[in-house]
Each structure stands twice: as structure tokens, then as C-alpha cells.
């Protein structure tokens, strides 16, 4: 029997200012990603919808670890996983969902292990400073997530069931209904995992064969996306997402027991009204974000509850007075109310921002984008930030060269300022500048693509928590950091009738070092690579597909990482290979997608965080049923 395969792969391209933004608006698009619309010429890795579908059973950290150049710092399956772009801190990458920044007010970062892929229709990783578009948290780039309702009239039901190694299962459903002028999408997900994998614990006497303990995780989530377009000029939408997670925190490999656990709840709501006007649109957006984190360690009796409420109102006006220019302006206000056991008192903060953006089509196939943003934060004066980017098409659109300069900032988190003990009200915002240039090359048939980029950025007043002689950690504007490197993304595909073969390679080289340590000009840390930053990451995949079957293998190499500041201790590079095989089957209105995958095929022993055990080979089987 012939084996056919379906080929799925992330698409790779340099994101360019669209020539006519309005043409790109989809009928039911509830929040056209501002990040993507105005992203100045820079590398963007967009994970295509077919690939997202085959990863429905995963969390965002898992798909990004193989399909993007983001370095995922995972504390183990089910545990905290953060996203690092260009070797920067996880708080330097903004995670934007339907226009809402998901980064925690407390920690400044987002936990990608809590974001189920099943809830997203669009996942893109945009490299480079985005502060002038998204404000805080995007010095290194942004992960743009979008959830939308189906654009089709009628009813569509999708059911996902998945079972995997280490006591893992996931059940999820999605119902899309399109009636006249309204579209609705309801999704729900339940996931459980024991994460009781075995490993040889070489850190313990006698290298005992150890079963991971206290590692259970549970996720329950529900999302609703509604869209109503009463006429061609108005479009209203609502996005609601509630999620509750319960996770145990396993012990370090060097320890024996842990009883720690953490429960997280989050309610996110976004409502927007987009009105199309002559040569443009206006978009009014209201957003609400409530997050709660409860941590407990029964061994020592420590409990900690943190709660925050964030309300946001923003208005965006996009206007193209002439064919060669699109102008955008956005004003936003944000109110944060937070409490934590360790803060001593409630914290309330008001923020406001104004932003301007322009995309221009200039002569000689040259485009230019300019963005400017100023944020106002109680007690802080973040710098005015801007970005200037340009690209030029050569030889039709087969070769595009681009360059960009951008500045950015990061306001200290609530924990940085209010945590007792240690919180420091005198911290300054971090500030950054970056420049990058590269090219995007493709052949006429678009079967070969190469994107290459070289960048350099400086981050000043880098905030870092460090132990003190008073017995606790405290943050300080400690140093200036330089990040420079190259990023490469290529793909090559071959097609024959209904069959397709695709190769993809993405790679990055990062050099992220301290260039100045404040108060200590002769510090031995100068020139040292930042901890947990791999010098290189490489991901190669081969996929083959047909209408009925698909097969895919992807191998990711992550370079060595130092685990201490003086760069004397490191954890080894690791190579992970995953494979997946599957098929599609249709019966009248029923469609079935069956997927069998093996992760860490070669049973590599590795760590992404020192002495946090990671699992060996695991198996997963997924059935996706769709009724139209």
C-alpha cells in the first residue's frame, strides 16, 4: 500500500508593510493583529494553520520550541515555561492575544505552558523590538496569538481527544456557528497529566532510576469568540477566555521531595467595535484581565495569594488619505489594581499611552514604516520610543532587502517594586535600542524561500533580582547588556500532483553579554554570556504529505547554556527529534484526522533549566473529528 503524506510546515517570511492594509481585513477578523499589520521590516515566523491543527494537543511552549527560534525555558512538562527571543529575558517578549498583552503584571512574563494551542487560529513570532507598537514587554519581540470565529455560514463541530505517555490526556471541543450577520465560536478544553516519567538521576548517590513525583497538572478552559457585522461598515466582536490550572511543582533532581503546588486562574475579555470609514477604519477596544496566582508549600507552611485586575480602553484610527500612505493613531488607558500577600497593601496604577504609525509606499518599490509611542506610568517616565524601517523590492518581489532601527522600554513589574522584602521603588525603566537588516529571497514559483537577518541591540538599566546579605533577593538596575546575532529561516518544497515534500531549516546564533556592570566597572562579569542563553539554536524538518496522509520529522538542536553568571558552569547542548504520522478520512459530513506522534524519539537526556528533569521518549495519539 502506498503511503502518502501531508506536509505541514511553518511559513517563513519577512513581514512587510502591506500595500493596502484594508485589503487584508477578513470579514470576521475580530482584532486584526496590530503587531502584524505595522510590524516594520523584520523576521516573522508564522506557524501555518495546518501545522497548528496537528499540534492542537500541545501547549504553546511545545509548538514554539520546535517551530520557532524562541528558546523555551521549561522547568519540566506541565511546569512553568517561558519564552526568550534573541537571548533576552522572558519579560522582554510580549505575548499578545487578540490585541491584549497577556504578560503577568506581577512577573512581567507569560507562562507558555498555560496557553493551549487548540484555542488559537493564528500564531506568529515577530522578532525585533516592538515597543512602539505594543508598549511594554516587547524589547526582543512579540508572540502574536489570535482566536477568531469561522467565517463560514452554518454549523461546524470539532472534537479533539488525545492520550499520551505519562498519564496525559486532553479532551476539547469547538462549535462554530455562522448565521446571517453573526458568527460564534465556543471552545472548551480539559487536560490532565501525571507527568510521572522515569529517568536515571545521575545527581544522586548510585544514580537511582527515579520516577518524577509531585508533577501532576490539570487545565480547564473555555473560550467564546462572537462577531456581529450589522452592515458592511460596522463589525463588533467579543472574546472571552477563562482558564484554571492546577500544577504540582516537582523537586529538583538534587532533592527528594516536594509538596509545592500552584493554582492559576485567568479571565480575559476583549470587546471591540470596528467601524469602517472612507479610506480607513476606527477601532474602539475595551479589555479586562483578571489573574490570580496561589502558591503553597505545605512542607514549610508558606502560602501566597496574588490577584490583579487590569482594565484597558483603547481607540485606534487607521486612515489612508492617499494610495501611498496608511496612517494609524492609537490612544489607550490602563488601570491595574493588584494585591499580594507579600505587598502589604493594595497597589493601584494608572497608565496611558499615545502611538502613531505610518506605512508609506515610496518610489522605486521602496516602502517605509515609522512608529512613535509614548507611555505614561504613575511614578515612571518611560522614554518616547520609535521605530523606523524600510524595505526595497529588487527583481520583482523575488528579493527584498530591509532594515530597521527601533527603541524600546520595560517598566519594572509590580513584584520588582512592591514585593516585601526586596521590592525597590527606585528602579528605573529599562531602555533599549536595536538595529537589524536582512533580506528575503524567493523564487518565482515561491517554492524556495530564504530569510536572513542580522541584528544588534543594547538594553540599559537591565533589572535583575540578586541575593542580598540581608537574606533575601532584591531587584536593581544592575547592568547594560548587548545582544547580537544572526537569524536564518529557509524552506524548500517540491510538489507532484497531490503530493508535497518540504524541507525547512531555521537557525539562530546569539551572543548576549554584559557590557557594563553598574558600580563595578572592573567586574569580571563583563563580556560573559547571560545565563540560560544558548549560543545557537537550529531546527530542521522534513515533511511529506498527500490528501490522505502525512508524515513529519523535526529535529531541534539547542546549544550549551551557562547556568552561573561567571560562566563556569554549563548544561550540555541537546538534540531532540520528534516524528508524527497521520491520515485524514472523510465520511459524508464527517472528517477524521488521526495523528500519532513520538517526542524525543532518541531518548535524549537533557535539561533546559539546570537540575530540572525532562522526560525521555513519549507517545501521543490524537483524533480530531469534524462535523460540518
Amino acid at each position: 500500500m502506498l503511503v502518502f503524506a501531508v506536509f505541514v510546515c511553518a511559513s517563513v517570511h519577512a513581514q512587510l508593510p502591506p500595500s493596502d492594509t484594508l485589503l487584508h481585513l477578513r470579514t470576521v477578523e475580530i482584532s486584526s493583529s496590530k503587531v502584524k499589520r505595522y510590524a516594520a521590516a523584520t523576521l516573522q515566523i508564522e506557524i501555518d494553520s495546518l501545522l497548528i491543527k496537528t499540534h492542537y494537543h500541545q501547549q504553546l511552549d511545545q509548538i514554539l520550541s520546535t517551530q520557532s527560534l524562541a528558546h523555551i525555558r521549561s522547568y519540566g512538562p506541565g511546569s512553568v515555561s517561558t519564552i526568550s527571543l534573541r537571548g533576552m529575558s522572558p519579560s522582554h517578549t510580549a505575548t499578545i492575544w487578540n490585541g491584549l498583552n497577556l504578560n503577568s503584571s506581577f512577573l512581567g512574563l507569560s507562562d507558555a505552558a498555560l496557553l493551549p494551542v487548540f484555542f488559537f487560529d493564528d500564531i506568529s513570532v515577530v522578532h525585533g523590538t516592538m515597543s512602539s507598537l505594543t508598549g511594554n514587554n516587547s524589547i526582543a519581540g512579540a508572540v502574536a496569538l489570535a482566536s477568531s470565529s469561522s467565517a463560514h455560514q452554518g454549523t461546524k463541530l470539532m472534537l479533539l481527544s488525545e492520550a499520551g505517555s505519562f498519564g496525559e490526556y486532553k479532551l476539547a471541543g469547538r462549535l462554530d456557528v455562522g448565521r446571517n450577520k453573526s458568527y460564534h465560536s465556543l471552545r472548551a478544553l480539559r487536560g490532565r497529566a501525571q507527568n510521572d516519567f522515569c529517568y536515571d538521576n545521575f545527581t544522586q548517590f548510585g544514580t537511582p532510576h527515579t520516577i518524577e513525583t509531585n508533577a501532576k497538572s490539570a487545565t480547564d478552559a473555555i473560550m467564546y469568540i462572537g462577531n456581529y457585522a450589522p452592515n458592511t461598515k460596522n463589525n463588533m466582536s467579543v472574546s472571552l477566555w477563562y482558564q484554571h490550572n492546577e500544577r504540582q511543582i516537582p523537586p529538583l533532581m538534587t532533592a527528594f521531595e516536594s509538596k509545592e503546588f500552584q493554582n492559576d486562574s485567568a479571565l480575559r475579555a476583549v470587546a471591540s467595535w470596528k467601524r469602517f470609514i472612507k479610506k480607513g477604519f476606527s477601532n474602539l477596544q475595551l479589555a479586562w484581565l483578571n489573574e490570580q496566582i496561589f502558591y503553597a508549600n505545605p512542607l514549610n507552611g508558606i502560602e501566597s495569594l496574588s490577584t490583579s485586575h487590569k482594565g484597558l480602553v483603547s481607540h485606534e484610527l487607521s486612515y489612508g488619505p492617499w494610495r501611498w500612505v496608511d496612517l494609524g493613531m492609537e490612544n489607550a488607558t490602563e488601570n491595574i489594581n493588584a494585591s499580594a500577600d507579600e505587598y502589604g497593601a493594595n497597589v493601584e496604577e494608572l497608565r496611558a499611552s499615545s502611538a502613531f504609525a505610518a506605512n508609506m509606499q515610496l518610489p522605486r518599490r521602496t516602502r517605509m514604516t515609522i512608529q512613535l509611542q509614548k507611555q505614561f506610568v504613575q511614578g515612571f517616565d518611560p522614554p518616547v520610543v520609535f521605530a523606523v524601517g524600510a524595505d526595497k523590492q529588487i527583481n520583482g518581489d523575488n528579493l527584498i532587502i530591509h532594515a530597521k532601527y527601533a527603541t524600546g522600554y520595560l517598566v519594572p513589574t509590580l513584584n520588582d517594586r512592591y514585593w516585601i522584602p526586596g521590592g525597590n521603588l527606585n528602579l528605573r525603566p529599562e531602555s533599549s535600542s536595536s538595529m537589524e537588516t536582512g533580506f528575503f529571497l524567493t523564487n518565482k514559483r515561491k517554492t524556495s524561500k530564504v530569510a536572513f537577518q542580522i541584528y544588534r541591540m543594547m538594553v540599559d538599566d537591565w533589572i535583575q533580582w540578586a541575593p542580598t546579605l540581608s537574606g533575601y533577593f532584591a531587584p536593581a538596575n544592575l547592568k547594560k547588556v548587548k545582544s547580537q546575532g544572526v537569524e536564518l529561516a529557509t524552506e524548500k518544497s517540491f510538489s507532484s500532483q497531490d503530493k508535497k515534500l518540504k524541507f525547512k531549516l531555521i537557525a539562530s546564533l546569539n551572543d548576549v553579554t554584559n557590557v557594563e556592570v553598574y558600580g563595578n566597572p572592573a567586574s569580571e562579569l563583563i563580556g560573559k554570556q547571560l545565563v540560560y542563553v544558548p549560543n545557537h539554536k537550529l531546527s530542521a524538518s522534513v515533511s511529506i504529505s498527500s490528501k490522505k496522509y502525512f508524515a513529519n520529522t523535526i529535529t531541534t538542536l539547542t546549544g550549551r547554556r551557562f547556568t552561573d553568571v561567571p560562566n563556569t558552569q554549563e548544561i550540555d547542548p541537546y538534540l531532540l527529534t520528534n516524528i508524527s504520522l497521520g491520515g485524514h478520512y472523510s465520511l459524508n459530513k464527517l472528517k477524521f484526522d488521526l495523528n500519532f506522534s513520538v517526542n524525543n524519539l532518541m531518548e535524549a537526556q537533557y535539561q533546559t533549566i539546570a537540575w530540572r528533569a525532562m522526560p525521555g521518549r513519549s507517545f501521543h495519539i490524537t483524533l480530531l473529528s469534524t462535523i460540518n
Partner: protein
Amino acid sequence: MNYIKLILPCFAFLVMFTGCKKDEDPIVSTGSLDGIFVLNEGSFGSSNGSISFVTRDGDSKHEDLFYAVNKRPLGDVVQSMTSYNGRGFIVVNNSQKIEIVNLTSFKSMGVISGFSSPRFFLPLSFSKAYVTDWFANRVAIVDLNANKITGSISVGQGPEQIVLAQGRAIVCNIGGFGSDSTVSVINPVTDLVEATIAVGINPNSMAVDKNGAVWVLCGGDVGADWTGGTADDIGGSLFKIDPITLAVTQSFQFGQMNHPLKMTIDAAGENIFFLFGQSAYGGKIRKFNIADNNLPTSDWAAKSYYGLGVDPTSGNVYGAQANDFTNKGWIFRYNIGGTLVDSSKVGIGPSGFLFN
């Protein structure tokens, strides 16, 4: 197109790539371990605690002796180390274990686990020891033949240092995450608490002098905001206890914002050294003779330290500087007269010493 021909070489390439394995490091010869073991806590949560070895003439021989010999990390937060019967018992607090090493080769001989937060080890015989277990508010009874916990004795909040005096095990209860003002007295034969003696707030360290008296140093309380210097700050104190009558025979009160810690005593059992500062986690060295009627008012050495030790062989005094707990730390050697002799680079977060 024959896809199989294309796919197979790719898979083969990936498998070859994955099959690479690093060569094992060679075993390290330690040479003589007659000298000073420096206990480096490491950065909390990073499992980079270590033991450095320095000779008595100041030659740094190994920054991470345990890893060099055993090819595995020692663990998270090295708390204390005790030598007994040719073996070293290394208490690794946040790894909830005691690593046992041969004091000649430093090769690992075993591990004792089952603690929640072990702090100090007190050998009672070849087959029995006590270990203070901070989170559990207990003293664990350990069978040294089986390396197992066989029982436990409930004591006060956050049991810390433990010493043997006149056949009794005396435990200072530092207060855990709250506060305590007692020492517990345990009969090692019956494993029962015989008495609980009131001392100052948060007793943190003890020493037995040449007359057998037990000195208890209490750190006081920096207050709920951890910063010290505010109205809720309570200064430390020093108590002398007769281990036979269990009576407090002498006491001294430090002033507000004065928080002494890490008391140790010289080989003669006459001079007490401790760290003295406004923080509860470090300070400058002060010296107190057991015959003195007043607390010292000046520093014995000018530098601030996180750890302190007195070599019973040479009489030299050692201070440990942890700096920021992310870079390597340093130790400084003073002669008996208080003159700084030299310094040595050690592991991350040095906090204590064992003189071998």
C-alpha cells in the same frame, strides 16, 4: 519522485547526530585533604552548592571538590558539615539530604534522605546521630548503619544548631519563619525532651566552653519588613547555660539594631567569636572572652562576613564573603592576633568551614 530515497538519508543523518555522546571526565586525584573545607551554599534553587578545599597555607586546591571527585552536583544550599569516624556528613538543606563522604578521598559513601529541611548533624555514636529538621520542627534520629531516619523528637520552631554538653543534646530553636525564644534539651538515651529553656529571641548558634557551659547566641528580630532599623527591631542577646542544672547563669543584651550570629569558639574553649551587624545575615567579627563581664564594643576585624570559623589546629580565624551569591565568593584568613594574612577564591556563597 521517490520520496523514500530522500527521507531515509535525512533520518539517518538525524539519528547519527543524536547518537553522539560526550566522553566521561577522568577521575580527579585529590591529594591530601588535611586542611580546610569551605562550605559554599550556592544560589538558592540552583543546586550549585559546593565544598571548596583550601590548605592551611592558603593554597586553593579545589573550588568544587565534591563534583571533581564524584562527577555529580552536591545539591542546593550546603548548610553544614561534620566530621566523624573518618567520614564527612554534609548537610544539604534544600536538597533535603545528608551526603556522606570519605574524608581521605572525598568519595561519596552514601546519602541520608527523608528530611524536610535539614540543618545540623550531631553524631552520638557509631550508629546514631541527631539531625535538626527546620521545617518539621523536629530532631530526626538517624541510624548510621542503615543511613535511615528511625524516629523524631518534636522541639521548638525551626531547630537550628545542636551541640552535645554533659551528655545532653541541646538544640537552639531559631524560630523558623516566625519566632522562638527557647533551646530544647534532649536526653540521647531516651530520645525525650528533658527541658525547654527560655533564652532571647531567635537563638541561632551555640558553643561549649572549656568548663562545659553552653553559650547561646540569639539574633533578635529585624521586624516584619525584614529591613531592621525600625521600631519593631529587637536587638540580639547572649546566654550562658549550665548543662547540668539547666539554669541560665549569665546573660547579655545587645542594643536595638544589633543582630549577632554564627558564634564559634577557639580550641581552648576560652574565646568566642561571632559576626555582629545590623543585618540578620552577616556582620563584622567580634571577640568575647568567657570571663568578660561586658559584651565587646569594637570589631575584631574590619571586613564584613557571611560565614565565620576558627581553626582548632592553628588558631587562625577565617571569614567568608558571599558577595552576591551569583559570583564566586572569597575567604579571608587572620592570625590569632587579628592580622589579615591572605585570601582565597572559593565557590558560590561561602558560609561555613570544617577544619580537617
